[in-house]
């Protein structure tokens, strides 16, 4: 029977059968109905289980758009005038932004010595790691004194109007 799934039998096609066979027909109907129910449940549940994540995925989320465009807002020229610096989060990495006389600079805020988060020392006008008094230059990130073995990696900044952005990558 090639078209097993699609077949329907009409009463007129079935030849006259003794009672015994007719009795056997009746339980077949609920079984077939149950099977149809099972199949439609199978189809519906499969489709639902596939469509749900796809639709959820396509819905835009606020958090995902924060890093869109490859740049993150790090501050404004009002909150960071020349001579001031602050530690901000860029994605999942902390960065230190400093407004120096030579422009706005940004570096990774993870000290290259033992991984402490550096701070801006306004009085000394340099980046200091509070753990062991390592000092970094705000112009280039180079080590000025103390135990850090390597300079702070520099990040690219771009100033648009009043906003300071750190460019990721």
């Amino acid at each position, binding site marked *: 029977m*090639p*078209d*097993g*799934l*699609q*077949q*329907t039998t009409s009463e007129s*096609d079935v030849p006259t059968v003794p009672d015994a066979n007719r009795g056997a027909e009746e339980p077949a109907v609920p079984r077939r109905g149950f099977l149809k129910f099972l199949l439609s449940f199978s189809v519906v549940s499969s489709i639902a289980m596939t469509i*749900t*994540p*796809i639709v*959820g*995925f*396509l*819905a835009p*989320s606020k*958090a*995902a758009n924060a*890093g869109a*465009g*490859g740049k993150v807002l790090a501050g404004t020229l009002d909150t960071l005038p020349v001579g001031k610096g602050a530690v901000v989060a860029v*994605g*999942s990495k902390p960065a230190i932004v400093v407004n120096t006389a030579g422009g706005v600079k940004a570096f990774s805020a993870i000290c290259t010595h033992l991984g402490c988060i550096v701070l801006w020392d306004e009085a000394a006008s340099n980046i200091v790691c509070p753990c062991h008094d390592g000092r970094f230059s705000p112009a280039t990130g180079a080590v000025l004194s103390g135990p850090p073995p390597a300079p702070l990696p520099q990040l690219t900044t771009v100033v648009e109007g009043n906003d300071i952005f750190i*460019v*990721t*990558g």
Partner: protein
Amino acid sequence: MATDTRREERLWGPLEWAESRLHLGPFIAALLHVRIPRDAKTFYLGGITLFLFVIQVITGTLLALYYSPTPGSAYESVLAITSDVEFGWLIRSIHHWAANLMIISLVLHMLRIFLQAAYKFPRELTWIVGGGMFGITILFGFTGYLLPWDQRAYWATTVGTEIAGAVPLIGQPLLLLLRGGPDVTEATLSRFFGIHVLVLPLMLAGLTALHLLFVHQQGLANPKRPEPRPGRPGPDLTTEKTKPFFPDYVLDELIAWYAVMAAIVILASLFPAGLEAKADPLLTPEHIKPEWYFLGIYELLKYVPRDVGIIGPMVLVGIIILLPLLDRNQEVRPRRRPIALACAFVLLVGLGYLTILGGR
């Protein structure tokens, strides 16, 4: 047949509407109502590979809606997909595991075809087209691996393209072509993305259509006897036991697909796709390892001279693709093909051993 007047069948409403306009009924019936040898043990591997490819197309398309193919934002976009986008971790993990499973099922499929000698007359072209599909799938893996732009991706690609550059004669131009320059840069990422998302899917879709057309035309091979050649007396085929493709085989295939889906769900939930540190061209990690399907070749290069280690696998792949033209033995039963089976055994054991070594 749908037009058989033996029984008055009414198709479902919308189907009837389409059928009365397009008359696709006979065409679809010709596709579905074929019979396959009952002895054919396919283990549904070809269909599983196709299913996995479809999963890759769907999940890959979804990922491409959020992915950004420049070094400045690729890593961040993948991190956002994994951490912030709703179900992002699931789509990405499915894409990751379906890729691995696709390669495994592809290799098992090729192994099954080889063991049942289904690549011999008249199915040589099917095998060669399949060899091309195998190459494309490997390229899929190679190009896709770079896209997250983390340390593992960047350095595995650097080493991989370096090995490509060591191919004799065409090595250097090949390296420049692959990398879009002398080093792995944003140019590399751009072209790998384009190749992975546009070029390879179209090529694989085309070859798959060809492959399925050939399979439909020739039917499945019988593992018990060679296909009768034209003009030569063959065995009596009328007593061969067959079963219908639709719905028997299709149902079994569907069950296999559900099983694969279950495997992917388990893998994606228990071992979600991770991400290492962002790529740093100035910081070479201590151990660079390519993805597992390249580990065997990578390990081989440690023991043999570089030229041998590169030409060898290329020659091997060539032999595998051209196997039907090289293997003149007309027998299909394993006992009558000792050399072929011995070679395959040696190759599998060797490659397996090298892969395990490379994984350490």
